[in-house]
């Protein structure tokens, strides 16, 4: 074959491909230059290390096989896999077939794509040839099956485990139209060619014969190849402007992630990679309680990322999110969308709240302690039974402790941070740090997961920080005689901040199994529901919150427990709103109920005073 006599129809494909080959590296380079110098140093240090190999393994399993989507729903996983992996194999196998056939390793890129056109009467002379023909047909079928599912999903998303499909914007629609056309057109062009030349694989040959008997195949042949090439070229040109940009960007993101680049407080080039890696698969919107319960359908991760990408983000979209983390946990691309949201909030709000500077004299006096310092947190002031239960248990266990915020509320700083008031939050953190340090405590005990998370992640404290569920688990293991099993039937609610936020799932359960009969619920651990009380959402209305709370509560009481246990004062307060038949208690209260009866010290009368007999 000779280049000069090849027909013009390959040009749309070649042009599209050339465009991609120039455009993609250019934008990626631009984003890389926007990352910090530290990130770039990290990249150059890691690029020739095992990290890259690990990244490639992940690229293979996520970008091609879509393992995480499989876990979410096998049919949906198959749909994504057949399109991505099927197409990938078509390219690889096609290239190999062409190389073997032409005995030329450096054939032009369009040759494998339009192989059938250039070698229409290629009749396999040997087993190897037959193998390739059959394989290529099988692969085409594989891709077409995925495509059928995709089309089906657009109209009946429930079938693929999705409550609804994401809404598309114009560039997506254009790219989608080209994409949907590519493989049917390929099949048509190959079939017609097979029909005309009476040669081909089992699938294209049989469909080709049928077509040739019905249609003027010879005249249609070239137009079909043109159409196929235009679909390909059109798709390539539309790709960077549509959601399909994720195909390549996701791979780049995986590499960067493995090289140690992380989402930062401020948006930078890495954020661009993250934003463009979203495939708009809609899995996040599907697990989001805002849409499931409260009828809010514009602010989910998928829409937030989309609006941000196309520069049309409304502040309200960034604000209307619970930061519950359900979407990040389910996202097959593992995009840290909460962090990106926070960047946007901070951009807008940071300057609107001044740093807090309370004169030291006005700060609540710090108790001196060498032992455990308990930080109750603002919310716990409204749930005094939690504080009292902790006090009782610590006293019973002879733990030396003092309470940091007994006299008045001190804020941990996290709510301000979540709202984007970064400088204010930092000033609060600094102040509270000073108070903690002054106490010379050896351990900070926290009963509020919201505080716990920020103490862990933003405070640089020289002492360990423990959530009370973990602290008490260890205490109960060390002093089992203090507790008995009440045999009460209970369910456990994983709060967002302790569960998905801090990864503490097992300790509270272990503790609860010791003191009661813990029964499972429909949504546990990573999949736990948000109580709806989250401070992170700045736009939701109280009535919408209540809808979320009611659903979450229904799930928790479905197994008919005697009571529901949580380990967050905020969740407890949220659930106790309105009229609830089954009470929600904190894990400390559950533990307090399980305390063994105290042995009364023997008292004897000595004169007028009663004295304790040891």
């Amino acid at each position: 074959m000779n280049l000069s006599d090849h027909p013009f129809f390959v040009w749309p494909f070649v042009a599209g491909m050339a465009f991609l080959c120039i455009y993609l590296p250019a934008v990626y380079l631009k984003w890389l230059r926007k990352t910090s110098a530290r990130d770039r140093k990290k990249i150059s240090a890691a690029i020739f290390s095992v990290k890259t190999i690990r990244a490639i393994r992940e690229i293979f399993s996520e970008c091609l096989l879509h393992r995480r989507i499989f876990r979410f729903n096998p049919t949906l996983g198959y749909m994504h896999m057949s399109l991505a992996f099927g197409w990938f194999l078509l390219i690889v196998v096609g290239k190999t077939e062409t190389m073997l056939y032409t005995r030329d390793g450096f054939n032009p890129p369009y040759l494998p794509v339009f192989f059938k056109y250039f070698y229409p009467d290629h009749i396999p002379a040997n087993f190897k040839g037959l193998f390739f023909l059959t394989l290529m047909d099988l692969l085409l079928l594989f891709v077409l099956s995925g495509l059928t599912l995709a089309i089906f999903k657009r109209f009946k998303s429930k079938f693929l485990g999705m409550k609804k499909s994401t809404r598309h914007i114009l560039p997506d629609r254009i790219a989608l139209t080209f994409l949907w056309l590519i493989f049917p057109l390929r099949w048509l062009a190959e079939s017609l060619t097979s029909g005309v030349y009476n040669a081909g694989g089992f699938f294209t040959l049989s469909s080709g014969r049928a077509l040739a008997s019905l249609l003027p195949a010879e005249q249609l042949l070239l137009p079909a190849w043109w159409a196929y090439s235009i679909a390909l070229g059109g798709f390539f040109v539309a790709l960077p402007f549509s959601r399909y940009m994720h195909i390549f960007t996701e791979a780049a993101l995986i590499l960067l992630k493995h090289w140690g680049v992380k989402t930062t407080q401020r948006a930078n080039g890495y954020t661009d990679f993250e934003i463009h890696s979203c495939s708009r698969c809609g899995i996040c919107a599907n697990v989001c309680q805002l849409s499931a319960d409260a009828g809010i359908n514009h602010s989910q991760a998928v829409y937030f990322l989309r609006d941000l990408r196309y520069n049309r983000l409304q502040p309200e979209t960034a604000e209307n999110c619970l930061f519950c983390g359900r979407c990040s946990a389910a996202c097959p691309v593992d995009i840290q969308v909460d962090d990106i949201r926070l960047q946007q909030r901070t951009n807008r709000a940071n300057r609107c709240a001044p740093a807090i500077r309370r004169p030291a004299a006005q700060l609540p006096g710090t108790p001196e302690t060498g032992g455990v310092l308990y930080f109750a947190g603002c919310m716990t002031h409204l749930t005094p039974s939690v504080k009292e239960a902790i006090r009782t248990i610590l006293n019973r266990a002879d733990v030396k402790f003092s309470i940091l915020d007994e006299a008045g509320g001190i804020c941990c700083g996290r709510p301000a941070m979540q709202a984007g008031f970064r400088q204010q939050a930092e000033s609060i953190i600094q102040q509270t740090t000073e108070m903690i340090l002054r106490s010379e405590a050896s351990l900070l005990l926290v009963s509020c997961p919201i505080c716990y998370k920020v103490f862990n992640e933003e405070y640089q404290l020289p002492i360990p920080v423990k959530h009370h569920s973990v602290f008490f688990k260890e205490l109960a293991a060390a002093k089992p005689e203090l507790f008995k099993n009440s045999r009460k039937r209970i369910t456990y609610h994983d709060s967002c901040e302790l569960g998905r936020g801090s990864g503490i799932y097992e300790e509270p359960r272990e503790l609860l199994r010791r003191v009661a009969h813990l029964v499972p619920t429909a949504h546990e651990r990573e999949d736990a529901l948000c109580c709806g009380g989250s401070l992170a959402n700045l736009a939701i209305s109280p009535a919408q919150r209540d809808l979320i709370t009611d659903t979450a509560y229904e799930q928790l009481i479905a197994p008919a427990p005697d009571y529901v246990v949580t380990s967050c004062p905020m969740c407890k307060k949220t659930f106790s709103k309105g009229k609830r038949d089954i009470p929600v208690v904190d894990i400390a209260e559950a533990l307090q109920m399980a305390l063994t009866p105290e042995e009364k010290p023997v008292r004897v009368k000595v004169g007028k005073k009663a004295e304790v007999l040891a």
Partner: protein
Amino acid sequence: MYQHNRYQKGKPQQVAVVGAGVAGLSAALTLKKQGVGVVVFEKDESPGGHLQQWHALFPDREPAAGVLDLLKQEVSEQKISLRTQTEVAAVTPSGDKFRIETSQGEQNEFDAVLLATGFQLFDAARKEEYGYGIYQRVITSAGLEQRLGHGGTGLTVNGRPPHRVAFVHCVGSRDEKVGNHYCSKVCCVTGVKQAITIKEHFPQCEVLNFYMDLRMFGTGYEELYREAQEKWGVMFIRGRVSEASQMYDGTIQLKAEDTLMGRPVRATVDWLVLLVGMEPEKRAQLWARSLGLRTGQAGFFSSPEKFLHPSLTTVNGVFTAGACTGPASIPESVSQGRAAAISVLEFLAKKDEAGK
């Protein structure tokens, strides 16, 4: 309207009264005096409803026991058939009658039913921030009535009189956080009355009332408020208490805003009294709903003709009176009971007419 003799000809018609509080008993007495057969069902051991729990009544601080005794006396004089310790578990229509089923499983038919199931006190433990059930010296207004009983000894602290007592108005009422948006109406005046009673027992004790609005709706209530200020020196602070905590010596520290001063207040008290509101009787509500009775937003029974025939319900032949129709004082509950009795009589007369 009714003709006394008509009922004496044949077998008198039978009316079931559910609840032997002041409303139910007043209605039963009126009906009985008109010759109708009445059976009063009461789930408690004794009649009187909530009146039994009160020490002295607003607005005149008349001893509750006296009022209760008079009522009971009349009930026994009239030989009202009173079935105590018998909770009504269901009311179902049966032909042109109503079948009453008790929790013991007994069933009887009646020509008409009058519901006077009253109210239940708001469970103060649901307002966790006030510490009821957690701190010993946080009590409710109902609990205070009992402590006021024996010369106020229930309020002494380690044998000494209390130094300071604070009342929190609107606990469980006007509070969307507990799902009760309505005003319970009687707690303001109860708070004023109880404040005075404390001063009577312990003149040295300082009494603070934390309120959002003072609703002195009835005859003599405003005068009582004035007396509390002028004669007894009760201090009224406009601000809702947000939370309370216990100090090491067992006293209670509360937080509020003095909204008229515009500054936060903090006060340590020997007792914190929560003026708990009224909620509809939950269990009665359940079966009443399956009978088809309409309740208003707050869950109290409501009449389809609330201006002219307040005791009617959406079910013909079923009537309501007293605090089950919404927060009410004793005189109001009594009047409602008597008014409902008249409506029952009218209904029976009509039924009798039709039966002829």
